[in-house]
């Protein structure tokens, strides 16, 4: 890891100012960024830690919406998001306990790893990603592998998720990395069902619209049994072929519906 300077501001405004300098980068829990810097795939001149900003911590609920501070750890979401059980379970299944004690929701969404868990919840709930300058709809936020709508130096300060009537996340774990080989988040609302898939596609997290339509008409595990996902866009690596991942998307969706009840 190349050396850098380190600052830990106490407010969003001070963090934004600190991030304005050249080659400055935000540091959340460091569970992705520190390993990346060790490999010298990133070499910022300055790290601006967001973990000392009280306004970016914690989970609250009002009017059917769960609000999560951008620097809230996975462990805190798992413990505090009781009003949205599907999300609490997702957070409690990320990585391992030590990763969950440091890693943050803002870092996970900003990183947009194609195998990360949170992007599926954000997309399936139609979340609003709040930054220091604007609000971004989840449908516009994720823009492909490791790509998001965030501008240089923009900070995710909070995430607002409409709480579904029923929801569940099914993760087919890749046991070595502990990330999702395929993960599916199903969220049922009065207005319809949203299904978001992570881990599977070369384009990153995506909504499976055929399943959404089928489940909107009939919210049961069998509703997706006649559907199939085109394997063309799926990821292929030593852990699974395109066809294997395409098949898993369907199986995980069906399991998520069964578990959501």
């Amino acid at each position: 890891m190349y050396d850098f300077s380190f600052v830990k501001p106490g407010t969003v405004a001070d963090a934004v100012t600190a991030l304005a300098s050249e080659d400055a980068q935000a540091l959340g829990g460091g569970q992705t960024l520190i390993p990346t810097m060790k490999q010298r795939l990133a070499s910022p001149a300055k790290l601006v830690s967001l973990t000392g900003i009280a306004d970016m911590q914690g989970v609250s609920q009002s009017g059917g919406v769960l609000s999560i501070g951008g620097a809230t750890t996975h462990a805190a979401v798992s413990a505090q998001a009781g009003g949205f059980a599907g999300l609490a379970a997702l957070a409690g299944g990320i990585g391992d306990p030590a990763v969950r004690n440091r890693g943050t929701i803002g870092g996970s969404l900003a990183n947009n790893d194609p195998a990360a868990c949170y992007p599926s919840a954000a997309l399936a709930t139609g979340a609003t990603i709040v930054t220091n300058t604007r609000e971004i709809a989840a449908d516009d936020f994720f823009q492909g592998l490791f790509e998001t709508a965030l501008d240089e130096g923009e900070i995710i300060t909070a995430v607002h998720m409409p709480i579904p009537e029923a929801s569940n996340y099914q993760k087919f774990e890749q046991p070595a990395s502990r990330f999702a080989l395929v993960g599916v988040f199903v969220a049922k609302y009065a207005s319809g069902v949203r299904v978001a898939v992570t881990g599977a596609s070369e384009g990153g997290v995506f909504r499976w619209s055929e399943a959404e339509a089928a489940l909107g008409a009939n919210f049961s595990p069998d509703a997706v049994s006649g559907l199939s996902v085109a394997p063309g866009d799926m990821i292929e690596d030593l852990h699974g072929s395109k066809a294997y991942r395409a098949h898993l998307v369907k199986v995980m969706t069906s399991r998520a519906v069964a578990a959501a009840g």
Partner: protein
Amino acid sequence: MTKLSMTVNGKPVSGNVEGRTLLVDFLRQDLHLTGTHVGCDTSQCGACTVHVNGVAVKSCTMLAAEADGADVATIEGQANADGSLNVIQQAFQDHHGLQCGFCTPGMVMATADLLKNNPTPNEADVRHHLDGNICRCTGYHNIVKAVLAASGQDVDAVAAE
């Protein structure tokens, strides 16, 4: 260089570190607390697990500067005041929860973290909680036994896998 101070195993310590100094390097190289091990340095193995403000973290994946002002606990602070092994350490010895011992400091710290929040875990809880701690010797079975024994439960009930 950044000046920092923290409490490690109940004692105040301070030092000067580079931005990039990892917590594990500060512990091992500056404080000479070499009980915390580096197994992978890629955030995978958990050998470097310590507690920061009461929760388990991978000290190879946290900057020392980020722990400024924190309360840190390492394996060196785990023994009883009279120097005898604490209940977790003793259970690892009694149940052969280690062979080479390289993973053991991290296992003990992860176990302490588990038992603090869940004093009587079942076998599945133990395996889930130790997900991030890799042991290449024991096959985990005796580690799970040791953790259950440390929580005061009957270990004969654990079936071999």
